[in-house]
């Protein structure tokens, strides 16, 4: 939830000054989380392409007084401004959300989701079931990756070729990979459903947890800090035009 608020706050800010508290906040969170800085930088590498693309788009496509222009392209003062602005925003977004995924286990994540959306139970939204589905989906990602790798190798051993050829040929060559993958995914889902049924699973009502979420003093402090941070951001937005 904290992450969500942080992300929203990034969109609230409209100028550079607004990023100062965001930067302080983020730096503090990184420090507290004890995630090695190298790890975070590594995570950034994946989005360098996206980042540079958005920077370039903003740089060239923002209308305004041209500073440098060649051929049909021109760079305006406003363009540079938005580009830098967007780059900072994106970087903060990614770091913020990767901090969350690096520090929170999928179980905690779904527990939190269940609790955070608990109020929706009143309007008959099956919150527990949605959270359960999410945690199962997350749990299945590594299994399916492994399965894909295995089937790919097996088909390669039978002479399948996944690399060469034009795009139609490439898509066709995926059939021997996708069909067994889907079948095994369905089989696994079936087995899991059966196993859950066999152990008497019947949804969220009256269900207890092995590790219930408990609030400690720390959590209260975290909430207060978060609210303060939000207040500062909103204040900055309102006060500085």
């Amino acid at each position, binding site marked *: 939830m904290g992450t969500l608020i942080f992300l929203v706050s990034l969109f609230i800010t409209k100028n550079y000054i607004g990023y100062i508290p965001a930067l302080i906040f983020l730096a503090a969170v990184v420090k507290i989380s004890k995630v090695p800085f190298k790890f975070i930088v590594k995570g950034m590498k994946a989005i360098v392409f996206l980042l540079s693309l958005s920077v370039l788009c903003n740089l060239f496509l923002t209308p305004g007084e041209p500073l440098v222009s060649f051929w049909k392209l021109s760079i305006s003062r406003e363009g540079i401004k938005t580009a830098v602005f967007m780059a900072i925003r994106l970087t903060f977004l990614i770091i913020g959300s990767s901090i969350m995924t690096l520090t929170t286990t999928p179980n905690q994540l779904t527990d939190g989701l269940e609790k955070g959306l608990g109020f929706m139970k009143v309007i008959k939204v099956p919150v527990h079931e949605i959270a359960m589905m999410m945690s199962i989906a997350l749990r299945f990602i590594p299994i399916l990756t492994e399965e894909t790798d*295995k089937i790919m190798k*097996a088909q390669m*051993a039978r002479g399948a070729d996944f690399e060469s050829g034009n795009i139609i040929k490439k898509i066709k060559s995926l059939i021997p990979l996708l069909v067994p993958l889907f079948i095994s995914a369905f089989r696994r889902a079936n087995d899991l459903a059966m196993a859950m049924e066999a152990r008497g699973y019947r949804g969220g009502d009256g269900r207890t947890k092995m590790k219930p979420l408990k609030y400690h003093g720390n959590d209260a402090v975290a909430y207060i800090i978060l609210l303060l941070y939000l207040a500062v951001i909103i204040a900055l937005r309102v006060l500085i035009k």
Partner: protein
Amino acid sequence: MSIIVNHVSYSYNPGTSMETKALKDINLVINDGEFIGLIGHTGSGKSTLVQHLNGLVKPTEGEIYYNGQDIFNSDLTRKELRSKVGLVFQYPEHQLFEADVFSDVCFGPKNLGLSSKETELRAYAALKAVGIEDEYFYQSPFDLSGGQKRRVAIAGVLAMEPEVLVLDEPTAGLDPKGRDEILEMLSDIQKEKNCTIVLVSHSMEDVADYADRIIVMNKGEVAYNDTPSEVFKHYKELEKIGLSAPEVTRALYQLRKEGFDVNTDIINVQEAVETIGKCFGI
């Protein structure tokens, strides 16, 4: 005409903190026409090793030669190699995908670029070799029983007519009857086509009757590499690495310890029964 594995090492995730050495300096020679049992505990590196044999995995160090050609550094194309060294994976029935049995078996030879007539002939021969009757040819492979599915999957590799057939735990999850049928079938195929077979397993009983030579792997290294009866002499050491010699061997050694004069090299159940019978004057 053989496979030579020369000082091969392989690590998963090299250069990271999660680096694990799956194979450490493996040296092996697999001769033509041999029936080899490759045995090891779970995680001993046997599956990783067999994936090297047809170039699915590239060794971190060392080379592999097929008929004198380095498989990663020569004119030998990957496709050619894979048609010569057929690899049947664990639970091969999970790779079936076509709408009917026959076209699934055709997949392998078709990838080799053979004519459709040749492809169909090979598929037919392969299905016959694994004992699938004509009536099943145009059924969906998903309607077959577990044992039949596995045989169809093995036929899919056989249809490529490999000179070396590598099978990774072909008997896993089958009942004793299905297991015996598969092993018997492999032995027949070997005699008929005179090809080399490498059978991966964690059960000594599986390979004892059929293998000419047994290679025992432990923690990424070759622990033993000898004829079955020689390897089984180390039955005490085998137990330490989580494997057990066939029950027959253990029974005979126990008898010898008790003072009976028995031939402990016997691995065939029938012969063992006779020997033990003699001991007790039956």
